[in-house]
């Protein structure tokens, strides 16, 4: 019994020391965390909140963040030495609904009152976000953070709750926790026992978040810095664009102007892709994603965040090959523009870049030229008063 008590004391001292060390270490004071394009980071409320500084602007997106990281054009490398600190949030299959929750959760920690959402046209397929995808990207801690934000309206919470219950039906255990958070943090209809249970569970989730995020930061080699540069260090955009085109000409010599590696992987499948989408006259124009995007913009409005939507194009050369009608593409872009106008949101509209050579790395993800143009739009938006 004495040995157990001594061990318990030792354990508590270790855990407490770990907690204070990690809580201090998770804030890195440089751009390494913000431009770190890792999925696990995007579900870390503690990591995101701790690293929001006077140069940070959340940039929500999806799988494009995992592409082009080995080039100088990816934000991870391009903004490594700038005062501007784009907080990249997202990975494959992150979409507007999940980003609405994250924005509502991290908003209290944001100094720069702006946010960017990079829209992939493929999000706007008829089914919208898939239940398995949403479940795999869902973070309870962010959901609880959203419910705790007093600026988020009842209507917004009701919309997010309804969609979440529908999409999380395949994960009963998480859904039970969601119900508990809602009862305690939102609907105020919980017993004292439930309030204690929720508080304990939330404290555990925060500790787990701190620990696992710090662990991943250590394994990724993210170290503490000495603060942001005092100078803006704006990149030379025209030189970068010229370099991207030059690099593209040297590497991407194929009919879709994508990297040779991805083109070679695509070649065996090309015959089956020919005109496969020729009847997609209503493609990307209907589905729940539009309402989810509307919700994202509503959260921005309610929390006083100025949004910018980055309208990414499709790869015109490849989409023409698959027969995806140009009229459908144009109608999709226009729907996004109309929605942005309704909410008075800024746009960085790249719809006219469908045929810009080397804009894409593969069929859907932006590459060299694409990253330079998108990064410039992020920087310009950040700099605007």
């Amino acid at each position, binding site marked *: 019994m*004495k040995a157990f008590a001594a061990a318990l004391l030792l354990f508590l001292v270790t855990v407490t020391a770990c907690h204070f060390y990690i809580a201090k270490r998770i804030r890195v004071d440089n751009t390494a965390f913000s431009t770190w394009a890792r999925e696990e980071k995007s579900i870390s409320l503690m990591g995101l909140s701790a690293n929001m500084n006077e140069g940070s602007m959340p940039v929500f997106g999806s799988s494009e963040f995992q592409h082009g990281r080995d080039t100088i054009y990816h934000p991870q490398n391009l903004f490594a030495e700038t005062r501007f600190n784009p907080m990249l949030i997202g990975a494959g299959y992150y979409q507007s609904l999940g980003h609405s929750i994250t924005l509502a959760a991290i908003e209290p920690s944001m100094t720069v009152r702006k946010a960017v959402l990079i829209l992939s046209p*493929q999000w706007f397929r008829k089914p919208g976000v898939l239940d398995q995808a949403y479940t795999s990207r869902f973070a309870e801690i962010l959901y609880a953070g959203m419910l705790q934000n007093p600026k988020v309206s009842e209507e917004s919470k009701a919309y997010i709750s309804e969609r979440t219950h529908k999409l999380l039906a395949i994960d*009963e255990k*998480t859904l039970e926790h969601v119900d508990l958070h809602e009862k305690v943090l939102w609907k105020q209809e919980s017993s004292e026992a439930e309030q204690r249970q929720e508080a304990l569970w939330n404290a555990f989730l925060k*500790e787990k978040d701190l*620990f696992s995020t710090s662990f991943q930061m250590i394994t990724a080699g993210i170290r503490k810095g000495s603060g942001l540069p005092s100078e803006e260090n704006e990149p030379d955009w025209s030189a970068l664009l010229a370099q991207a085109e030059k690099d593209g000409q040297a590497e991407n010599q194929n009919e879709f102007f994508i990297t040779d590696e991805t083109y070679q992987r695509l070649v065996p499948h090309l015959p089956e892709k020919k005109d496969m989408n020729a009847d997609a006259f209503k493609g990307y124009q209907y589905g729940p994603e539009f309402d989810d995007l509307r919700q994202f913009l509503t959260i921005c409005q309610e929390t006083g965040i100025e949004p910018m939507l980055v309208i990414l194009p499709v790869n015109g050369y490849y989409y023409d090959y698959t027969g995806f009608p140009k009229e459908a593409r144009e109608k999709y872009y226009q729907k996004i523009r109309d929605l942005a106008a309704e909410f008075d949101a800024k746009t960085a509209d790249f719809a006219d870049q469908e045929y810009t050579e080397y804009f894409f790395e593969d069929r859907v993800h932006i590459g060299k030229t694409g990253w330079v143009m998108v990064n410039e739009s992020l920087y310009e938006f950040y700099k605007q008063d």
Partner: protein
Amino acid sequence: MKVFTNFINRIESIKKDHPKLAFACQVLGYYGLMMILYLYFMLANLSSAPKFVYTQF
């Protein structure tokens, strides 16, 4: 079986001959178990969601 009983007898004799060492070993044993449990809960994926296989768009 013989190896096991020999091992237990040896532990018992250490406990008798070196009580402080035995106590320290017990403390370390409990401490190790607690740390393993702690690390498991801190790093485990507690979601019961079906595994999502990422496929490119």
